[in-house]
Every structure is written in C-alpha cells, then in structure tokens.
C-alpha cells in the first residue's frame, strides 16, 4: 500500500507537458515562432529534471503563478520577458538571431484555489 503513496503525490502535481514550438519560415523572409507552453513554469524557471513541479524548489513560486488571472500572469511575464526570450536560441549558420516579442495568449485560470484547498485536506487525511 505504501508503494502507492508516491503515485498519490504525482496526482496532485501538474505534469509538465513538453512545449510545442512551431518555427514557420515565411516567404517574406521572417520566422514566426509560436511556443505553446505552460507559462507559469517558464516564469518560475522550473527545471526539466523535475517531472513533477511539486518536487522542485520553485514549486511555491509556480503555485503562486498558477493562481493568477490571465491578466496578472501576463504582467508577471512582462517583467521577465526580455530575459526569457533572450534564452531562446534561434540561430542561422550558428549566429544567434534577435527574437522580438509579438503577442501573448493566456487562457483564464482554472479553479486553482479550490483545488489546492482540496489537496491540503487530502494531505491531512493521509
């Protein structure tokens, strides 16, 4: 029975799906980069060594970000946008190109607060 406890924990955490990156090369000489990702983990800088976000040291920050509305999360991203974008490396003939920000689309938050209350309750039960 005890062996199931780790499973229990990972059910609470939020598995990090891989980001989907579309690099579209257009005829007018530009590259449109569309990254579909969990922006919260991007901002919290959660390491890919941690498959479950609850294991990582930035978990607290991540959970904080998750609770934000799309508008609030967007402002959080603005603070780190430049630093984040500069870490993407799109290179032509090994020379890093300048990526500029176009726009951001964030869906409205899930009912994060209720969920975490529920999970705190669960932890007590165990």
């Amino acid at each position, binding site marked *: 029975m005890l062996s199931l406890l780790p499973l229990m924990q990972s059910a609470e955490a939020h598995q990090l799906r891989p980001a989907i*990156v579309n690099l579209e090369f257009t005829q007018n000489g530009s590259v*449109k980069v569309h990254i579909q990702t969990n*922006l919260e983990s991007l901002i919290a800088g959660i390491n890919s060594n941690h498959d479950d976000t609850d294991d990582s040291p930035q978990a607290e920050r991540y959970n904080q970000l998750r609770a934000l509305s799309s508008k609030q999360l967007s402002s959080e991203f603005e603070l780190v946008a430049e630093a984040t974008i500069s870490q993407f490396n799109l290179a032509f003939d090994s020379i890093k190109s300048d990526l500029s920000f176009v726009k951001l689309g964030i869906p409205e938050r899930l009912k994060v607060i209720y969920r975490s209350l529920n999970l705190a309750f669960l932890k007590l039960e165990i």
Partner: protein
Amino acid sequence: MNKSRLSDLYLLALIPPAKQQTDQSVNQYVTWQYPQNFGNNIAHFFYDKTPLEKTSHWLTKGATSPKFELNTAYVAKPFSQVAIEYTILGFEHIVPKGTDHILFVLGLFLLSVRLRPLLLQVTAFTLAHSITLGLTIYGAISLSPSVIEPLIALSIVAVGVENVFVKELKTRRVVIVFLFGLLHGMGFAGVLSGLGLPESDFLTALIFFNLGVEAGQLAVIATAFLLVFWLLKNPQRYRQWVVIPTSILISLIGILWTYERVFL
C-alpha cells in the same frame, strides 16, 4: 492528468541574408534551442507555403535541434528515428506520466493470481484503446476531454471496487475492461495530437506510440509481479494483504480524481 494552463507565446525574427557562398552546395541552416530549465520541447520546422511538411524534433535536456537547411527540398525523417522517438513517447505516457493508466492496469493485475484472466483483460484493454486511439487521431470520432477524463477516473474506481467483491474473471469484467479501454484510447489520442503528430510520418508515429504504450503497461505489470510474487503461493493472504487494501486505495484515488475532473 490534471490539466495545467497552456499559454501561447508568439515571437518573430528576420531571416538574415545568406552569406555569399563560395561553395554552392552549402545552404543556410537554422538551429533551435530551448534552455533546459524551461523543460522539454518539440520543435516543428516548416515553410508557410507547405505547412504540412513539418520537420519535427523531440528535444530534451536543453538539446540543440539538428540543423534545418533552408531552401532545400523537404526530407522525411528516417523510419527508425520516428519509430524510436514515438515508442519512447508512448512508454513515457504510461511510466511515469500516466498515473491514471498505471492504476487501471494495476487494477487489472490484482483481480486474479492466474495468468489467463490477466491476459484476457490486458488483451481486451489493448484492443479497445488501439481502436479508439486510431479512430480519434484520424478524426473519425471525437469526445471532449471534459467527458473522457472523468470517465477514465471512474473506470479506475470500478476495477478497484470489483476486485474487492469478485475473485475471478467473469465475461462481464472483460466487456467492462474493453469499454473502458475505448475511453483510455481517446485519452491517449488527446495527448498524441497535443504533441503535433508529424503529418508525413502519421501512421508510423501512431503505431509506435501505441507500441510504447503497450511496453509501458507490461512494465507496470512486471513490476507489480516482482513486488508480490513471493505472496502468490498463499492466495488467501495475498488477497487480504495486497488485493483488497490496494484495490480500495486505487478506488479512493479514482473517486478523488473523478471529483476533481468533474468539479474543479
């Protein structure tokens, strides 16, 4: 699993003019790299005029993509590479990422100590989820994740509960497992389509993803067997110590997930 919020970030860069090539055979090339601390990524390279001809790379641990040569004809990835990549993706979707599928398969394992009931159940499950995975990916059927996900959670409750009350395989169980397999297949399809299946390697990717899923299931069963085989000689004790408590726990987790997926 629990859905985290996915956002869309749009960026733009200009393609620099190609350097004067002294050697005509050398084309301008592009690479993409995404830092390790942001997680893994799947990069699709394509031209706006041929959006279906994607060159896709599965990049982990901050790896830099292979070179994508500009202005050259599209070359499909070698079969073996697609096969390996999607087998791994399928496997990872069960172990470690598919906690709900792991619990379901454990539920099947716990029903009986004999091999035949296990084989029949696993075959029914595999057949069913292969059918719906294929049909969903090809767009023949579709059901919203908000319907599928709670039902998958309920399927976990059902196998757990049945394990407590039923000791041996009945036809009913095989039918139920088959029906639940249909749901799990649609769940797999959701994940696979989210990854952006390469159009050119569609069938290869689909088949090997499914094989990876099977390998993941077998790994779960093999691990479970190694953990309990020393108890199997004493079926009564095995039932009391392992089958009943674990099945109850599996059902409880299933109930919690059903609740989460419906109400939260």
